[in-house]
């Protein structure tokens, strides 16, 4: 039950709840814009056409980079001058990022585009605004966290689930993490690598991190570049059996000096912030783990008693039950942490966790509250806490099988040698996409924790396509099927050439999913499509067990619904899955992750191009194109963009990002005297 439920309740919730979080929790005060910005707006009548994003993004990017990187700027256009002035103003701190973004919005650019222009213009992937208020270290009392699936181990390299990453992250830290808006935030690094500061190479082949000086492990030993290099060696050794090996085996990490490391990639890597960033990139100390690299990794005593660099020092750990920590008086960030002790309790279920936080106030924060919205609304009435939401990119979707699940070829069903007898007709796929009533799913099931979406790729903002749309219409779907030759038979079920329109629709057992299935089935029935529902225990559905026919990778059904969490604010990993080389087959023991077994050369080309593209604007355009191809072909029917839902005491001011683990920004959490 617990293991495979997608941890995130992600997606793009309704704008109202998002802004609620951002404004009230993360950004209590909005800065007013400097008046100078307005003047610039008036003086420069930039036209919308000049910024037509998908077309001129690349040129714009180049021009901007030229504009900001070249010392002797000659012969620049008015546009360049104006933009450059603004970018410089942002760089010098005369204009704030928000101001810049809002100006750009006035020209018809989206906010993420504007942010991207800043990034290209040489302003580092800036840190989001910090709202941390306490002016001294400690004094916040105890912070009590309730994780209804308790962490079972505390070595980030062994973390099988996000719960383990959450637990490890209390004590261990990465070089940088992600804030609520998907901006990078520095932790152990001294500055964010950029082209400007020489941290990034122009060809995208390497990234150089400068480490914060004076950082100490909890046992007093200094944190240096050796520790970072060691983590790479440790994780990439197959004998160590880490789960982070995938991130580390294709890179090379070298020490430049005591406080500088360089990561070199095998091929141009536009998204360079994978290794050592976020909770999975947390760094363990070399001096305590060096002896336990390789086959002896399990014997390291510190697997259970972490010595990290984080805001809290380790006190006690009981797997699956409780983790305790206390304030680290030598923490490297000023005035942090706020709380004197920290406790993370595990076990139980989501509903009672919500109760313990929102209703009785026994705990301050409850993780991943996958509870129906009306239950939460009831608990919130007159309670001691509330729910908070964080927007990430997690999308619940229905995948369509492009191969035939009912014909066996060489001992393999859903074989690449077959074609789906019904779903290979685009009209059927199109009709199906019109039969998923996303608005009803949101209203009945997800409530504030979901947003309807026409896209497969729902974040970060700059990668979200604006070219797509969706609709729910049983009449239009019926008409489409009529036109394609699918005529209702005697039993009301449509058929064509003797093939009946009957589909098997499977998913994991999980309340909201079964309800969604019922909503879809009902609409399909009205349109003359017979849908048989099947639900599989989550631990089976999501398992990699080769012998089991009911896994999502085998896909022995016509439709299946699940979600793949997006764990970092970049679509590369997410979109790469559906490259045609990744189809799941018997040959690769169903380890391929392209479960719909969809093959589209244009898509492949877009993904290949995006992975090698170092121009960020062009890269974003390629991913948007990839999403659009997917939606045109109707490989997936997006059901819901899901938000992370957490329960939180009224007085607590947590910082939770949809792009990171809940504990990733723990150093910025504090409590206010009044709710």
């Amino acid at each position, binding site marked *: *039950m617990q293991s495979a439920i997608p941890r995130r309740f992600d997606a793009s919730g309704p704008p109202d709840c998002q802004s609620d979080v951002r404004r009230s929790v993360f950004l209590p005060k909005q800065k007013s814009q400097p008046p100078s910005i307005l003047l610039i707006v008036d003086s420069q009548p930039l036209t919308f056409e000049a910024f037509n994003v998908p077309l001129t993004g690349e040129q714009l990017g180049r021009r901007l980079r030229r504009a900001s990187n070249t010392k002797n700027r000659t012969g620049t256009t008015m546009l360049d001058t104006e933009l450059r002035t603004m970018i410089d103003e942002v760089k010098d701190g005369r204009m704030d990022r928000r101001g810049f973004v809002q100006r750009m919005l006035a020209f018809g650019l989206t906010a993420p585009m504007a942010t991207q222009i800043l990034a290209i213009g040489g302003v580092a992937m800036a840190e989001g605004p910090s709202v941390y208020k306490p002016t001294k270290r400690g004094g916040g009392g105890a912070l009590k966290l309730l994780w209804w699936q308790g962490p079972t181990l505390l070595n980030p390299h062994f973390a099988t689930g996000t719960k383990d990453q959450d637990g490890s992250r209390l004590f261990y830290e990465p070089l940088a993490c992600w804030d609520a808006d998907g901006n990078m935030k520095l932790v152990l690094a001294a500055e964010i690598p950029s082209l400007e500061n020489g941290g990034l190479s122009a060809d995208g082949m390497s990234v150089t991190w400068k480490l914060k000086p004076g950082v100490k492990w909890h046992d007093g030993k200094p944190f240096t570049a050796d520790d970072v290099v060691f983590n790479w060696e440790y994780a990439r050794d197959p004998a160590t059996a880490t789960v982070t090996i995938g991130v580390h085996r294709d890179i090379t990490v070298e020490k430049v000096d005591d406080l500088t490391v360089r990561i070199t990639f095998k091929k141009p890597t536009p998204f360079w912030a994978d290794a050592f960033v976020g909770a999975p990139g947390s760094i363990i100390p070399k001096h305590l783990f060096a002896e336990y690299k390789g086959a002896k990794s399990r014997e390291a005593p510190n697997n259970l008693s972490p010595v990290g660099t984080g805001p809290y020092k380790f006190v006690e750990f009981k797997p699956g039950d409780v983790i305790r920590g206390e304030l680290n008086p030598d923490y490297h960030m000023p005035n942090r942490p706020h709380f004197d002790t920290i406790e993370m309790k595990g076990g139980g279920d989501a509903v009672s966790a919500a109760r313990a936080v929102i209703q009785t106030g026994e705990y301050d924060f409850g993780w991943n509250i996958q509870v129906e919205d009306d239950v939460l609304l009831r608990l919130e009435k007159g309670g001691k806490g509330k729910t908070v939401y964080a927007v990430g990119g997690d999308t619940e979707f229905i995948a369509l099988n492009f191969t035939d699940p009912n014909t066996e070829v060489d001992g393999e069903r859903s074989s690449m040698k077959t074609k789906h007898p019904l779903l290979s007709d685009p009209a059927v796929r199109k009709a199906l996409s019109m039969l998923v009533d996303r608005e009803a799913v949101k209203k009945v099931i997800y409530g504030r924790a979901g947003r309807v979406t026409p896209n497969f790729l729902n974040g970060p903002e700059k990668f979200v396509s604006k070219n797509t749309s969706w609709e729910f219409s049983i009449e239009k779907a019926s008409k489409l099927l009529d036109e394609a030759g699918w005529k209702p038979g005697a039993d009301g079920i449509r058929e064509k050439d003797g093939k009946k329109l009957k589909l098997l629709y499977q998913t994991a057992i999980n309340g909201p999913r079964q309800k969604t299935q019922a909503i879809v089935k009902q609409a399909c029935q009205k349109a003359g499509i017979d849908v048989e529902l099947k639900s599989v225990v989550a*631990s089976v559905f999501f398992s990699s067990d080769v012998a089991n026919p009911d896994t999502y990778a085998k896909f022995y059904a016509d439709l299946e619904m699940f979600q793949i969490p997006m764990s970092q604010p970049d679509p590369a990993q997410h979109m790469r899955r559906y490259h045609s080389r990744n189809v799941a087959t018997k040959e690769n023991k169903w380890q391929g992750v392209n479960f719909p077994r969809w093959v589209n050369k244009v898509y492949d080309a877009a993904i290949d191009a995006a992975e090698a593209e170092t121009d960020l604007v062009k890269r974003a355009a390629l991913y948007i194109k990839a999403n659009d191809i997917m939606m045109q072909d109707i490989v997936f029917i997006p059901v819901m963009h899901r938000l992370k839902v957490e329960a939180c005491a009224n007085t607590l001011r947590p910082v939770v990002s949809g792009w990171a683990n809940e504990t990733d920004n723990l150093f910025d959490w504090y409590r206010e005297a009044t709710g």
Partner: protein
Amino acid sequence: MSQYVLRRLLIAVPSLLGISLVLYIVLALAPGDPFSELATNPNVPPEVAAALRAKFGLDDPIYLRYLHWLAAMVQGDWGFSFVSRMNVDTLILQRLPTTLYVIGSAQILALLIAIPVGVYAATRPYSIFDQIANTFAFIGFSLPTFFTGLLFILVFSITLDWLPFVYSSDIKATGIRWLFEQIRQAIMPVMVLGLFQAASMTRFVRSAMLDVIRLDYVTTARAKGLGQPRVIVKHAMRNAMIPVVTLVALQMPAVFGGAIVTEQIFRIPGIGSLLISSILSNDTPVVMAVTFVFACLVVLFNLIADILYGWLDPRISFR
């Protein structure tokens, strides 16, 4: 008698072997994968999960895995948890004190209620007291613990706000305050379990007592002029306890095994919650160890019950 014990212990060996074999096969055949959580993590390529499976020997044939497990177990090596990569025995020992405290207290509470109430009800069958005791007993064992647990939480934690409903394995207070907190947080789970046990046990004690109290030797004892308390306690109860001892002995393994449902509801970090989370994450070594220890305890307590019979009723001989 020592010969009897030795013989029983020897007989236990093949039955335990049989139990372990069945357990292992059932677990191996059960679908699922301890690394299924990795499969949905886009950061982790599928080969990594496959490599981990291979490294932990999950791809070996079942008989080989069983033999490995058995060989290690005989040498006292219980293996390590796939999920926490910690030794299984440490994991279990960490959970044992809480389970013993909570479930043990519940059992004691059940006995403290069941024996006096059952005996008293049997001495006055169909009296008002007996009727009331019976009614409550029926209600008690008809209500499942997951229901009474939630009911208690709603009443005592949420409405009245008297008791916490999240169990904490170590309370930070010291001295008398520690003791107070420890008792306070255990009240609800102990009540839920204890009352449930007490209900069925009361019925049991009552009927065992009723059987005995009508026998001739009890009448004889009364005829000798012995007082009621002496007749009941010394003569009737001793014999009536034989079936009760069986019942209690068979419930003792549960004291070590924990109560899965109640532990889950109150977040008690006991063996029961360890077992359920291990089953859900397909952590075979832990499930195997817990269930096997459970089997051993059942065998052991059966033996203890048999020996106790001899003490309670010298006519039962060990052969």
